[in-house]
Structure formats: C-alpha cells, structure tokens
C-alpha cells in the first residue's frame, strides 16, 4: 500500500510501521507485550467488524466522516479499539470508564456516533450508558462475551457484539479516507455548561507527527511513557509518536502510576512526556534524584506552566536528556510552540516559568489586541496561531467555530484564538502570562469554570454559583476547584454526590462553601477575587 505524502492518514502511519517492524514490541500493558503484528491483527479484527455494516467512502463529506466511540482505559482492547476505529475509516472518540455514565451518553449523542467499542473496564457502566442513548448503537466488546441479560434488555434498540462475533482480520478492506476527515474528536470543557468537541483532521495530526519525528529523531528502539489518559490530546504523542516510529508504548499500571520515578527505570523508558505536575509530584515525594534517569534521551512537558525549578530538577535527574517545554491547545493539535530548557540559560535568570518559546516549523504565531491587530513588540496580548495544525473546529458548532477560528485584518490564513495572554520578547521568545477568560488548568486538564458553575446551578437549584481555581500556584496553575453558593439550604453532601454523576473527577469541586451573600465589585458583578481572598 503506497500513499503519496498528501493522502497519509493516522492509521496509515501505524500500518506502515507495523509492516516495517512486525516483530518489534508495540505495546506493553497489563503485564502483556504485544508485537506490531499482534496489535495490527487485533485492530484489524475490530476494523473488519465495524466495516461489516458500512465502509467510509470518498463520497462522505470530509467533516462528516463517521465516528466510533471507544470506552476504555489503558488496555489492549482499548488501544486496539482506537486503531480499529481508525483502520475502519472512522475517527475515534475516546471516553473513560471513570466518567459518569450520563456524561458518556451525552458525548455519544453529541458525536452522533452509531458505534461503541468497550474494553473490560467499561463493561460495568454499559447498561447505564445504553439506557441513556436513544439512537441505535452497535456495541463491540472485543475481549468479553456478551451478557445474555444485557442483550435481551436492549434487543429492540442496540446490537451487542462480543469477542465471538469479531470478524476475521483478513476481511478488512483498506478504507478511502480523506485527509480532511476527523481522525479524532476530543471533548474539552465548555463554558456554557456542556463539553465541546474538538475535531482534528488526519492532515493535522500527521503533520504534528512529522514534525516531532524529525525533531526528536524518534526510532524503533525508543520506549515511550504513557502517563496521559486517552481523552487528553497529548496522549496522541505517546501512542502515535511510538506507533509511527516502530517504537514501544509502555503503560504503567495503577500502582506504577503512583511512583512514576521508579517506573522510568523499571520500564527502561527512553522518551518521557507528561504534564509538569507529574514531575513536581516526583520532586515533592523526593523521588526525583540527580542521575536517577540515565536512560532517558527525551524529557518533554506540556499542558501547563513548567516552572524553572522543576525543569532544572528533571534535567539533573536525566543528564542525557533533551528537556523541552511544549505549548498548545487541542485546537492546534497537541503542541505548536516549544522552548528547550538549558541550565544557565540567561533568558531564565529572572524567570519563574520556562517560556513557551517559538512556533513549530510551518506554524505562525501573532500577539494581537481585541480587534485582532498585532500589538507592539514586547506588549502583551492574545496569542493567535495559524498553520497546518489548525484543527477542523468544534463538532456541530459552527457559531463557536467561527468565533474562535478567525481571519485577522489583512490575513488570508485561518488563525485559532487561544485565549491565552502572552508576550513576544525581543529575543523572539513567547512567554505565557495567563488566561483572558475563566479557564483554569488543573494538572493540564482544561476546565472552564463556567461549565462547573452551570452544573452547580442546575444541581443545587440555585440562581448563582461561583467556581474558582484553588489553590493557585505562582505559575498560574490550579490545584483544584472551590465552589461558592449563597444558599444555606443546600445539602452540600447530597450536592457533591449529584455533581459526581455529571462531572469528570478532575472537575469536581474539592470544597463547597456557603456564603451569606456574594460580594460585588464596582460593576455590580460577583467579585471573584474577594471570594478567592476568603480562602487564604
């Protein structure tokens, strides 16, 4: 199968590596090592089963390529489900078994997917999810037998397929997939109270992979960390950075994730990628010791501010590694700017955090005012970015897409408005200064406080609720969320249980505080700073 550089796809990258390195390890998970040929076989069995109903064709509208939801977490079946969805010609929509069933059902409905692949960890949620989805679904459980009671219960609505129903991988037919089709749809927090779906095209992610493969010389001998959930776009670096290079993806189990520093050595990792919070966890648990990671050749961080002390400690722990800070929202395909950390760098002399640096090759960054006009050099403004990694937009949400993907005056290129306040210094280095809205980062997870507030109002039955990031570090990251309500009649314990039915864990307020009345600022709006000040 040959493909010109222009019609390459995400699954095409995996299939090429699998053809080149059939016997090399592709995946270590749950104590099992899968070779490329074994992983390919499992993926193609799922792909052929999905294709049994409908094969994507070139006639499909690019942005309307069908999607398959994958409910799972760090399992061979879950990874094979992602690859199987892609190899069938569909994009994938990842969701975690730790999510509330109501949120999973909402994501299925919003994606308009008609297929769901479920791994062993997702089975306990399945009945609740299926009951909450009205459109008929084909549900594939690649490593389980179908529970007859479940099949009976949903017989007139959903089709349930188990391991015995899997097609022969030989029945798989290479699909025709447009490079403009969505390779994946990821839901991020939305300020209006519901998650929004970011659709990323094959051409976007293939471009990102080309850039990182060349920059970091990714190779078959590499062993990649996998600290991210598959619902986090940074996970695509782990999965497809490895699987487009013939390298091995190493998945720590529940216990190993708690002691990431030990896992680096135990798994023989050469490539480390995580949020800076994970490195801080190592540092604070005193496991980030100088020289601890002699085998690492790459140490990459993304998702939130990387502080200079954390970067310095990691560089000392991994003396042979390149240490880089990457920056970028999901809408710009993982990361679009970077800065290399080096000890003694004069640019870091007075800095708390490592700069976000300069754009990736082919990407253009501008710092603009509210009218999208470039600000004077050295002034702060909103970061907007154009180039081949600008994603398709928000799924089924043209209004929001039009508001965030814009053409500034005098520009033909489409720029994504990041909502991040930055400054471009005379040395050509971008520095992150904060957010222009009420989004906070909690260990790299984007949380729109407006979404938390909307759910709080609905579930508490009150007119006003305020959520703030707390505690906030000097680098601007939040440790968690504190919610404020002005109604003493609210049963906080019962409210907390209801919130758990709708919000993923990282969005749950760690505290709910009742105040007599919300303080107001000079404009008559609720004074968030005054509320935050009551916490210190």
């Amino acid at each position, binding site marked *: 199968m040959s493909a010109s550089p222009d019609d390459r796809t995400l699954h095409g990258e995996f299939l090429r590596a699998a053809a080149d390195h059939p016997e090399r390890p592709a995946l270590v998970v749950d104590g099992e090592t899968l070779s490329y040929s074994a992983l390919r076989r499992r993926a193609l069995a799922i792909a052929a089963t999905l294709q049994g109903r409908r094969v994507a064709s070139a006639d499909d509208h690019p942005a309307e390529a069908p999607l398959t939801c994958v409910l799972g977490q760090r399992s061979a079946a879950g990874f094979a489900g992602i690859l199987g969805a892609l190899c069938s010609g569909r994009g994938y929509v990842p969701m975690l078994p*730790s999510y509330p069933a109501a949120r999973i059902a909402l994501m299925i409905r919003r994606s308009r997917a008609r297929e769901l692949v479920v791994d062993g960890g997702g089975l306990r949620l399945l009945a609740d999810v299926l009951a909450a989805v009205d459109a008929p679904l084909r549900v594939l459980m690649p490593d389980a037998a179908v529970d007859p009671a479940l099949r009976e219960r949903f017989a007139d609505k959903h089709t349930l397929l188990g391991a015995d129903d899997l097609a022969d991988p030989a029945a798989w037919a290479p699909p025709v997939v447009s490079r403009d089709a969505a390779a994946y749809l990821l839901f991020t927090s939305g300020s209006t109270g519901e998650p929004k779906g970011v659709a990323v095209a094959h051409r976007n992610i293939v471009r990102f992979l080309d850039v990182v493969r060349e920059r970091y010389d990714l190779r078959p001998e590499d062993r990649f960390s996998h600290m991210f959930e598959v619902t986090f776009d940074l996970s695509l670096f782990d999965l497809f950075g490895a699987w487009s290079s013939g390298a091995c993806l190493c998945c720590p189990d*529940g216990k190993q994730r708690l*002691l990431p520093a030990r896992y680096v050595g135990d798994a023989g990792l050469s490539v480390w990628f995580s949020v800076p919070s994970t490195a801080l*966890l190592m540092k604070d*648990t005193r*496991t980030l010791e100088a020289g601890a990671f002699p085998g690492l050749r790459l140490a990459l961080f993304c998702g939130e501010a990387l502080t200079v002390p954390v970067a310095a400690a990691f560089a000392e722990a991994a003396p042979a590694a390149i240490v880089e800070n990457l920056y970028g929202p999901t809408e710009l395909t993982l990361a679009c700017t970077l800065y290399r950390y080096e000890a003694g760098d004069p640019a870091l002399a007075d800095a708390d955090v490592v700069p976000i640096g300069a754009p990736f090759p082919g990407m253009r960054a501008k710092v603009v005012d509210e009218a999208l006009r470039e600000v004077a050099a050295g002034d702060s403004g909103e970061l907007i970015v154009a180039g081949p990694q600008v994603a398709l937009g928000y799924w089924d949400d043209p209004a929001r897409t039009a508001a965030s993907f814009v053409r500034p005056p005098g520009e033909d290129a489409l720029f994504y408005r990041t909502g991040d306040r930055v400054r471009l210094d005379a040395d050509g280095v971008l520095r992150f200064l904060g957010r222009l809205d009420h989004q906070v980062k909690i260990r790299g997870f984007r949380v729109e406080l407006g979404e938390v507030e909307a759910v709080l109002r609905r579930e508490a039955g009150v007119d006003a609720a305020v959520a703030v990031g707390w505690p906030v570090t000097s680098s601007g990251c939040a440790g968690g969320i504190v919610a404020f309500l002005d109604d003493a009649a609210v049963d906080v314990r019962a409210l907390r249980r209801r919130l758990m039915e709708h919000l993923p*864990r990282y969005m749950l307020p*760690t505290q709910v505080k009742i105040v007599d009345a919300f303080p107001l600022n000079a404009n008559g709006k609720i004074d968030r700073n005054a509320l935050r000040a009551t916490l210190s």
Partner: protein
Amino acid sequence: MAVPTLTKEHLIEQLEVHARDDLGDLTDDTELFSSGLIDSFAMVDLLLFLEKHTGTRLGPEDMDVDNLNTIAKILAFVASRKRR
C-alpha cells in the same frame, strides 16, 4: 517533642479532601490509590501529613504503594515509624 496520635477518623478526613468518589463506604482495606479512588497527586499532601504524625522525615524508599494503599496499611505504617 510529642507527636499527635493519628486516628482513623482524622486520616479519613485528610483523604476525603482528595477523594474522587464518596468515601462513605470506605473500609480499612479499600484500595485507595491503585483503584483511582484517590488521585496520585494527593500523595504529596499525604506524605507531609504522615511526616507530621510520625515526627520523621520520609524518603523515596517510603514512597511505596504497598505502605499507603489502604487505611489499615497507612495506620500500620505510621505505627511502625513511630516506634523507631
């Protein structure tokens, strides 16, 4: 210097701040970290909390999930530390 005694109730109170689920059904042997019930990032606060209650500084060798994964194990760990 007298070190405050760690009660089970006090420990649960400390863990509840980080819990991602209702801890109402918690038993002494419920897996806390390996089950995902409590975020790994809570380790740092737990570490500082346990140092206060053992009066000793804990090192990398103490950062073992098997020491800290259940209420029973944490209490036993604290007790063993205090005897030294």
